[in-house]
Every structure is written in structure tokens, then in C-alpha cells.
């Protein structure tokens, strides 16, 4: 109780203080840096130093929180180490008992891990969010128009806005998608757009995910844990709810169902319990109240898709698939795939079923195509891009290649086809040997790589260490907002904030040892 009071009183003190007051308070308290410390029983302040030269998500300057973050700094970041440890332990227990886990490929069957969760929420104020939301919706509309165009008329290729060989030579280009016309022209139903902030705090797009983006279940579960752990703080900050995502997703799926069906049946296709995102598949199907199906549950008859139920075959009109193109239809793609269903491409072409996301959408998140996304926005929407992208160089151009190879240690090099942070070279941190190997690889297959300048990712106060060693330190973060496209675009307020838990690391992927944070869009 005493501890709770201390936090509360401190909260009021902070909430009513001005920036100048905070600075005065700092000199009065005589802050020490390093481990989280209690200076006085009544005034507990965080010992935290933002990273120099980096945009800090929570603090404007040392001990001066950004306006929207004041309540968090006043209560959570000023709580005692005991309280922090207790909250962290409770959070971990909740994730474990809720079964919020991901599977790790290559591990034993059933090896499930918790995605590490950090208590300190990432805050985005309403104004910033409004701009982001508009930029994200614009971007996904353009990406969708691009996919519909290249598998339809191909205008953008004819007009040479995007090089034809770049598109048709992409590992994600699918000839089988040509001529498929989904209702409302929607190919990209679910998009996850990875954003980063540079040293000035400018949001920019790092990459698009328009095949089967994952992570949204963590957004919803993180929020559930936060509201249980700190209900007062969530309420005080005026956090926008993320609760509607499953019903928005279901609405979007219904909006792209074949228009002749009055009450469409939707199902979610999973590769099965050993897939790394199986928990998310379970979670989403449960939340939407639709069947979770595997390939063996489905069959195509007369260009229609059916589920095998105990009372016979039941037609499926919309399939939210969480398996890759390659495994979707053994008649068209990999013939050895047992995960998909033979004939589904024909059924899509016949218009009896819509598959979300459509076949071949991956061409729009190809890392080389990425360089042309601002041009797409201008071409299809006749609008200026609202969100900048991280500058991207295609190494297939000999002059560009020469320049990049010369200064390789200043670039981030990414393979065009891969995802999950695999195969990325971070020039400034690479060894001489790694740089030499990458030079050879680029010379061998220049089209397989892109180069981006090193972005100084923003950082966020994050708890690391255990027990008495718990400390509040800056760690790099990114943001993956989720955009749904049906008859209109819907943007989930916030998104998944991933945090690189290792000191200095810029890689936030779950498969690479990253963690996550709750993301708050606050109206206050």
C-alpha cells in the first residue's frame, strides 16, 4: 500500500509539473544513473539515459518525458524494483497460462516459447497517429492497386513506371494469378507495414508485408495483459481499444466474398500445430468464430471449395489462408504439398471462393519493388505519398552497385526475396570477412539484393535484467501496424512494437531474439 501511494503521489506531482519543474526536480533529487533506484520514499524517479544521437520514444531529453508519456513515467517508470519485478513476473505467468507462445522451427515438436514482453508501453499521440493512419491506408490502397494491375491489364508496366522484368522476374510473381478478379478488386486483405523512426523521430516505411503478415495476436494479447496489470494507467492515458480487430477482419473477409452469396462462410487455413504462428491461427479463428481448417479438411469439387464436415460437405466462400502461395494448390505450385488443396486456384478463377490474401501478392512486398512504391502511389492514386520510405538502392544498376560496393560498410544489405530478418548484412557492424563475402554475393547476383542507408532506429525505455539487477535502458524499436482492406481500409490503432532486447541490436524479429511492447494510441 505504501508503495502504491508513493507511486500515486509521485504521479500527481509529475502530471502537474511543467518541463521546467521537471528539470528543477531533477537537480533537487540528485538523480543517480545506472540501476533503478529509490531516491526518497515519496519520490521515486527512473534512472534512465536516452541514447545519444537517437530519437527516444518516451523522453524528450533526460528526465523530461514527452507530454503523452508523462503518466507512464510518473507511475510505471518510477515504481520500485520490487514492484517492477512483481509486474513482470505476473505478465510472464499470464502469457504462459494463456498459452501465448510461438513454435520454433528445428526445435523438438511441442517446444513452445513465450514472445518476451516488455512492460513499458509505447505511446503514439492522436495527431501523429492520424497522419500515420492516412499514410498507411494510402499505401495499402496503392499496393493493392499494383497487384490487381500487374495480374490484370498491366498498365503500370506498359507505362514503364515499374520495370517489367523486375516484376515478372520476382520470386514472388505468380503466373497463376493472371486473370483472377477478386470482389472489390481486393488482393491485399491484410497488410503489416514495418515502420521505423529516424534520429529526428520521422516515421518511415522500412518494408511491406502483404503475403501472410503475422503478429496481430500479440497486439491483442499484450493489451489484455496490460489492462489486467495496470487498469488505472490504461484508463488515465485514454488508450484506444484494439478489441475490434477480429470483427473488422471478419467484416473485411465478408466484404470480399463472392457477391452472390448472402451469408458467406469463412474459414482460416493453417499449416497445422507445428507452424510457428499456430497460436495466432487458433486465436484469430476463435475470436472470429470461424473454422480453423487444415488442407486435409478441404476439397474442391466442380470449381467450388468445401470443408469435410460430419454432416457432409460444406461450402467455403472466403478462405483466410496463412500458408504461402507455394503450398496452396499442389496442382499449380508445389505438387508435393499436403498443406493446401488441389484445385483452389480454379475455384478462385471461377469466382466461387475468395482467398485472402490473393495469390501472388508477395510481388508487392518484394524488396526491390519497394523502391517503386512512392511512384505507385502517384500513379494509381494521383496523390503524394504521405509516408516516406527508407531510401532504397537497386543493385542491378551498375552505377549504383559500384557506389554501394565501394561504401558497403555504410549500408544495410537485404536479400530481395527473404523475410524474417534472415540474410541481412548491417554494413557498419559487419566484419571485414562478412563484407568481402557480401561483395562476392552481390557481384554474382546483383538483382538478389537491395541496399538501404543505415537508419538510426528510435529507442525506447525497456526493462532488462532480473531481480535486483533490473534496469531501465534504451532499446531499439520498430512498429508493425496492421491494415485491413475490404470495401474500405481499416487500420488497427497502434500495432506491434517489436524491441531488440540485446544492447545495440537493431534486429527486432521474434525469430532473432526480439521482444514486444504494447502500443498505445492515446487521445488524451
Amino acid at each position, binding site marked *: 500500500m505504501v508503495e502504491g501511494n508513493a507511486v500515486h503521489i509521485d504521479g500527481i506531482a509529475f502530471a502537474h509539473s511543467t518541463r521546467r519543474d521537471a528539470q528543477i526536480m531533477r537537480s533537487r533529487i540528485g538523480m543517480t544513473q545506472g540501476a533503478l533506484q529509490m531516491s526518497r520514499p515519496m519520490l521515486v524517479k527512473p534512472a534512465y539515459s536516452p541514447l545519444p544521437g537517437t530519437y527516444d520514444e518516451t523522453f524528450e531529453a533526460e528526465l523530461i518525458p514527452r507530454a503523452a508519456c508523462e503518466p507512464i513515467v510518473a507511475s510505471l517508470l518510477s515504481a520500485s524494483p520490487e514492484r517492477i519485478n512483481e509486474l513482470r513476473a505476473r505478465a510472464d505467468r499470464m502469457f504462459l*497460462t494463456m498459452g501465448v507462445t510461438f513454435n520454433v522451427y528445428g526445435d523438438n515438436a511441442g517446444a513452445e516459447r513465450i514472445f518476451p514482453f516488455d512492460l513499458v508501453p509505447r505511446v503514439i499521440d492522436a495527431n501523429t497517429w492520424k497522419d500515420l493512419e492516412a499514410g498507411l491506408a494510402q499505401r495499402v490502397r496503392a499496393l493493392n492497386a499494383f497487384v490487381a494491375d500487374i495480374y490484370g491489364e498491366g498498365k503500370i508496366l506498359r507505362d514503364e513506371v515499374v520495370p517489367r522484368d523486375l516484376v515478372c522476374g520476382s520470386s514472388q510473381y505468380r503466373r497463376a494469378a493472371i486473370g483472377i478478379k477478386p470482389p472489390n478488386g481486393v488482393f491485399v486483405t491484410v497488410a503489416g507495414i514495418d515502420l521505423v523512426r529516424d534520429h529526428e523521430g520521422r516515421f518511415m516505411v522500412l518494408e511491406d508485408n502483404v503475403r501472410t503478415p503475422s503478429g496481430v495476436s500479440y497486439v491483442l494479447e499484450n493489451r489484455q495483459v496490460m489492462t489486467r496489470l495496470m487498469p488505472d494507467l490504461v484508463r488515465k492515458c485514454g488508450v484506444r481499444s484494439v478489441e475490434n480487430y477480429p470483427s473488422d477482419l471478419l467484416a473485411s473477409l465478408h466484404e470480399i466474398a463472392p457477391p452472390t452469396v448472402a451469408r458467406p462462410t469463412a474459414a482460416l487455413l493453417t499449416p*497445422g*500445430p507445428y507452424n510457428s504462428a499456430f497460436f495466432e491461427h487458433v486465436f484469430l479463428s476463435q475470436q472470429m468464430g470461424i473454422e480453423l481448417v487444415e488442407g*486435409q*479438411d478441404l476439397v474442391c469439387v466442380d470449381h467450388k471449395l468445401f470443408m*469435410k*464436415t*460430419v*454432416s*457432409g460437405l460444406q461450402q467455403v466462400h472466403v478462405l483466410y489462408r496463412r500458408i504461402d502461395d507455394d503450398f496452396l494448390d499442389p496442382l499449380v505450385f508445389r505438387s508435393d504439398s499436403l498443406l493446401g488443396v488441389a484445385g483452389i486456384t480454379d475455384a478462385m478463377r471461377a469466382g466461387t471462393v475468395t482467398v485472402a490474401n490473393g495469390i501472388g501478392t508477395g510481388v508487392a512486398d518484394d524488396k526491390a519493388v519497394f523502391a517503386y512504391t512512392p511512384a505507385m502511389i502517384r500513379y494509381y492514386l494521383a496523390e503524394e505519398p504521405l509516408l516516406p520510405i527508407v531510401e532504397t538502392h537497386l543493385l542491378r544498376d551498375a552505377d549504383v552497385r559500384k557506389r554501394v560496393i565501394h561504401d558497403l560498410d555504410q549500408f544495410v544489405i537485404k536479400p530481395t526475396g527473404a523475410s524474417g530478418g534472415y540474410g541481412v548484412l548491417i554494413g557498419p557492424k559487419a566484419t571485414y570477412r562478412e563484407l568481402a563475402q557480401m561483395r562476392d554475393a552481390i557481384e554474382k547476383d546483383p538483382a538478389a539484393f537491395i541496399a538501404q542507408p543505415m537508419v538510426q532506429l528510435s529507442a525506447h525505455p525497456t526493462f532488462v535484467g532480473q531481480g535486483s539487477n533490473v534496469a531501465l535502458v534504451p532499446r531499439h524499436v520498430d512498429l508493425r501496424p496492421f491494415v485491413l482492406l475490404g470495401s474500405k481500409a481499416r487500420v488497427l490503432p497502434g500495432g506491434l512494437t517489436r524491441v531488440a532486447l540485446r544492447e545495440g541490436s537493431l534486429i527486432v524479429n521474434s525469430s532473432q531474439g526480439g521482444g514486444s511492447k504494447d502500443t498505445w494510441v492515446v487521445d488524451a
Partner: protein
Amino acid sequence: MLRRIANHLFWAARNLERAEWRARLVNVNYHLLVESPPQNPQAWAPLLAITGEREVFEERYTSADETSVLTFYTFDDENPSSIRSCIRAARESARALRHRISSELWLELNTLYLDSLSWSPATLEASGIYAFFTELGGRFYRIAGITSDTLTRDPGYDFFMIGKMLERTESVARLLDVKYHFLLPHVEDLGGSVDLLQWAALLRSASALEAYRRVYGNAIEVERVVEMLLFDESFPRSARFAMNRLGASLQRIAALSANGTHQLSEARALASAKLANLLSSSCVTDVIGGGLHEYLLQIEDECTNIGEVLSADYLRFE
């Protein structure tokens, strides 16, 4: 209701029930041995014959001593019917069913499975055989309680109950057979004090001793025990109770199919009618007079038959 899901529910229930009754079977045999002459080298052999697993056992074990048989039944991973194998199979089904079952049920089953990974002859010895199986029985009850309180009453529940009740009917038959056919070869012992102790142990292993006393009083008679375990309509572990429960679920599923595109199977109707008939038209005097063992075998055969027909009708994919 997807066929795959129905299949998982059916087998999750069967495997849980099988694991639970395996534990009972082992425990009752152990009890009987405690109260019979010591150092009987053949003491555990009957159990292997009853469960039809003697050949599987003899492939890898040299003698039917206590440790070998307990290992075989409890945590032998190569025996698909060992308690641990059944728990593992049920847990794998539950994993595929996670979106349809409560998180509480998943957690309980998952914990039991994780604990079972550390079972060994040493853990059995350390906790004592009686305590080990009593504790295990309690955990199965907990799973049953969570299931009953959290599983939605849709066709999936019916498939779950069919699996459970089919397995239960078979298991009751096997349990009675251990005692009746094998463990009392000497007719002169019938009704003697050892015999009565054994019947009491058997009732206790089916959690039926108290219920028996309430209905029939103190005296334990063979006929009454058989009547209770096979024919008592109100006792939840009797074969007839299980059959009635199974019949109700089968009917609901058949009604579900009738207005769909699915053809009702005559074979299935016939199979369940045969078993129901077998259990409802018999009385204990006839059964014992005509040979209890033969009667029990008939029950087991009909159970196998229902399982096969049901699987062909509803649960297979292709």
C-alpha cells in the same frame, strides 16, 4: 463440425478413458496380489492376456515380473496403449483442438503430459504404487470435471462422449474379466474370504464400492457385483449407463446428418442396436450361467464394431 475435429475429439476422449482405465486395471491387479500368496511368478501374466498385449510385451521383455509389467503399462513409449502413450496421444489431439476447448482443459492436459515425461521405475517406487495411481486417478477426474464444465454441447461433445463411453464399456468388460476368468481358477475358493476381498478391491478400483454398499448393503456377492458393473442404469461407470449415454449421442448425430447431405449408415445403426440389445436384454443370472467370459468378449467385439463403423461413417477424411 469438421471431420478432423470430430476425429480428434473422439480419440482424445478414448485415449483419456483408456489411460484412466489402464491405471485402474494395473491398480486392481496390484491390490489382488498384495492379498494373495507371495512370489507367484505368474502373478502379472493374466493382465497381459486380458488386454490382448501379451505378444507385444513378449517381444521386448524377458519375464512378466512386476517392474516389467508396470513399466509396460505405465510409461513404455513403444507400447501405444501405455498410460503415457495414451496421455501423449490425447495431448496431441488437444493441441489440434485448442481453438475448440477451454484453455483450462488444455493447461491441465498439457501439465499431465509434461509430468508424465519424468515417470520412471524410480518415481513409481519413490511414491509407492498405490499413491502413484491414486494421484493419477485424481488428475483424470480433474480433466473429466473441466471437460464436463467447459466443453460446448455441440456435435463435438457427442463425438467426445461416444469415444469416452465406447472405451468405458470395453474397459468395464476387461476389468471384470481380469477377476472372473483368470484370477480365481479354483472353484472351491468361490465365495471364500480371499474371493470377497478381491471383489471388494475390484469394486473400489471402479470407484464403485460405496455405491454398491448403498444399493446392496454390506454383503459382496459375485452376481450383484456383475449386475452393478454391467447393468446398473444409474451408476455412471456401468456398461449399461455408458451404452445409454452413447446411444443418446449417436441419435443426436444421426439427426444432424439426416437434414444434411449425409447418408445414414445402416451398418452403424445395426451395430449400436446390437450392443444396446446385448446389454438391455441380458440379466445377470443368464450371463453367469452362459459364461461371463464369453459374454464379456461379445461386448468387446460389439464395441470394436461400433468404433469401426462410426469411423467409416463420420471420421475418415477420404
